[in-house]
């Protein structure tokens, strides 16, 4: 008994930090997801000439909490003909995979749960791919045609776009030479250039494939509300539905983080090696102060006392964050001897800021696309995946490999590598566009035959 207690204690001593991180992520993530949804709704409203949620809290700031409460106390419906066990299991599987994938990510030099995982990036990609089972099984267990079709579409879509995404990642990994997430970012630090610049085609491919993988518009066919009601989620309601929702947005965060890590320099400041851009270090605290100022400005305009206080609290919170961000930058000026001491804090805090900033930009792009573009049709989606993205990504891996060999032959480093990779990217694009045009010619021919078929029948 005592031995067991001792063992537990030892375990805790060793792993308290990752455990804490895990608990925090599981507990806080739903809240973060809720606020991402709120931001999405607000952005959508802004682009569509309306206001979005305004009633719950000032400017609808408490809307996510109200939504969560509503979802939690909703009646839990399981259809009679559903496969109860699988129906219960599927959303849990989905959300479990998504949360587990977060474990492999590093949100800054200091924040990572699975520390120094040797296969870091592969782990994240592989585990997050497991979420597909939640979708497929959920669709199957609902015992409804819409759900089943949503599930089939979803699995076909995920499997095909996983290939393109994987190839794009391989391309980025060629530059990094490692799978370990921290080493990937470190490689970009020493190179002084993000891999997104060196492998623009791969970045583009991953961008498209990641949208498809997270079932976002314009690839949101599995849950296309105008066709399949809600796809695999049709029969789910209340808490189970919110689990799916949580999984979807968590997956968005995961793919955005992967892209940030591999292509956008992770937690590095933009152009970290360029000396005259060092003023960018002051940007994070200034940004937060700006937000705080805006909140304070809007404060008197709130209709009720409670909302005014709440707005002020938000402003205060932003100020505190600004202070925390500013401290590591400003302290060395006050006391130069502190420079060594604050260095890790600077790296950690500012790294976290830049990482979250980049992830947000990525997510913003997702949302922007969603509001702007109509939805693909299923066959068009498949054609885009198999006939364009996959050939493009495979060709890109080849030409980037050649470019790397050329680069090492001429001993090109950092930005100079662009000399080798830019022609490579152009070459890949040209070949891919050629494929596309050939494909379109074929398609026209096929459509011709299809049309005659159609009239014959």
């Amino acid at each position: 008994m005592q031995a067991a207690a001792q063992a537990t204690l030892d375990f805790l001593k060793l792993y308290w930090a990752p455990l804490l991180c895990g608990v925090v992520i599981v507990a806080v993530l739903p809240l973060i997801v809720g606020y991402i949804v709120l931001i999405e709704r607000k952005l959508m409203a802004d682009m569509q000439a309306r206001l979005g949620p305004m009633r719950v809290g000032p400017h609808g700031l408490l809307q996510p909490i109200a939504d969560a409460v509503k979802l939690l106390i909703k009646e839990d419906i399981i259809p009679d003909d559903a496969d109860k066990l699988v129906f219960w299991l599927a959303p849990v599987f989905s959300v479990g995979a998504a949360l587990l994938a977060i474990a492999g990510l590093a949100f800054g030099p200091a924040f990572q749960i699975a520390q120094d995982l040797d296969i870091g990036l592969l782990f994240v990609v592989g585990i997050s791919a497991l979420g597909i089972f939640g979708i497929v099984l959920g669709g199957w267990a609902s015992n409804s045609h819409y759900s089943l079709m949503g599930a089939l579409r979803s699995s076909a879509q995920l499997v095909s776009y996983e290939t393109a995404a994987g190839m794009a990642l391989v391309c980025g990994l060629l530059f990094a030479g490692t799978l370990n997430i921290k080493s990937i970012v470190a490689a970009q630090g020493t190179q002084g250039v993000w891999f997104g610049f060196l492998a623009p085609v791969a970045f583009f491919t991953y961008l498209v494939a990641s949208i498809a993988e997270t079932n976002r518009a314009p690839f949101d066919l599995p849950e296309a509300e105008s066709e399949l009601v809600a796809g695999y989620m049709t029969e789910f309601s209340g808490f189970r539905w919110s689990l799916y929702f949580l999984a979807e947005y968590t997956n968005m965060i995961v793919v955005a983080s992967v892209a940030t890590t591999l292509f956008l320099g992770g937690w590095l400041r933009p152009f970290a090696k360029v000396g005259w851009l060092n003023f960018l270090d002051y940007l994070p605290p200034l940004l937060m102060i700006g937000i705080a100022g805006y909140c304070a400005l809007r404060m008197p305009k709130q209709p009720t006392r409670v909302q005014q206080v709440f707005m002020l609290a938000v402003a205060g919170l932003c100020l505190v964050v600004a202070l925390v961000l500013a401290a590591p930058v400003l302290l060395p000026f006050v006391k130069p001897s502190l420079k060594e001491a604050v260095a890790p804090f600077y790296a950690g805090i500012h790294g976290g800021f830049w990482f979250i900033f980049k992830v947000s930009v990525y997510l913003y792009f997702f949302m922007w696309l969603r509001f702007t573009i109509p939805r693909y049709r299923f066959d068009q989606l498949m054609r885009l995946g198999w006939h364009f993205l996959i050939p493009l990504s495979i060709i890109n891996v080849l030409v980037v490999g050649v470019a790397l060999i050329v680069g090492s032959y001429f001993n090109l480093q950092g930005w100079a590598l662009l000399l080798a990779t830019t022609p490579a990217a152009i070459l890949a694009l040209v070949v891919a566009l050629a494929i596309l045009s050939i494909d379109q010619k074929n398609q026209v021919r096929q459509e011709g035959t299809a049309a005659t078929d159609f009239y014959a029948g």
Partner: protein
Amino acid sequence: MVTRRNAVHSAIFLIATLLATAGIFLQLRAEFIFIVQIILYVGGIMVLFIFVIMLVNLDVALHQIKFARQKWVALIVTLALTAQIGLLFWTTGKMPGQGFPILTAAPVNRLPPNAEAVAKSLFSSYLLPFEIVSVLLLVAMIGAVVMAKKRT
């Protein structure tokens, strides 16, 4: 997994088994095989299985007897195999769990990164088998496409 009447349930249990196996691989410090197992086996092959199970409507299969009349054959084969292994243990004179070499051959922190080691081995000593496997996969791919294609 073997006893479920519903093939989807079988598949779910198989997924659970495969994930558990992946866990064992991780425990054995074979990280690369762990992730390959998850991506390929669980994320690829099992999705294919579930896809096919959904395609071929199960309502038909559900109402039929799940076991063929080969129970006795199965029992005999199983017993024979068990007896064989038991004999093996008997002849070596060691009880399971005792006297076997314990897996602490190399200290953990001195192992090279697993993915790197596997890759080096794969692309040097086992290059030919690797190429053969890739050809096999290509052949399988073509075969599957030909098989599954609708005959018009």
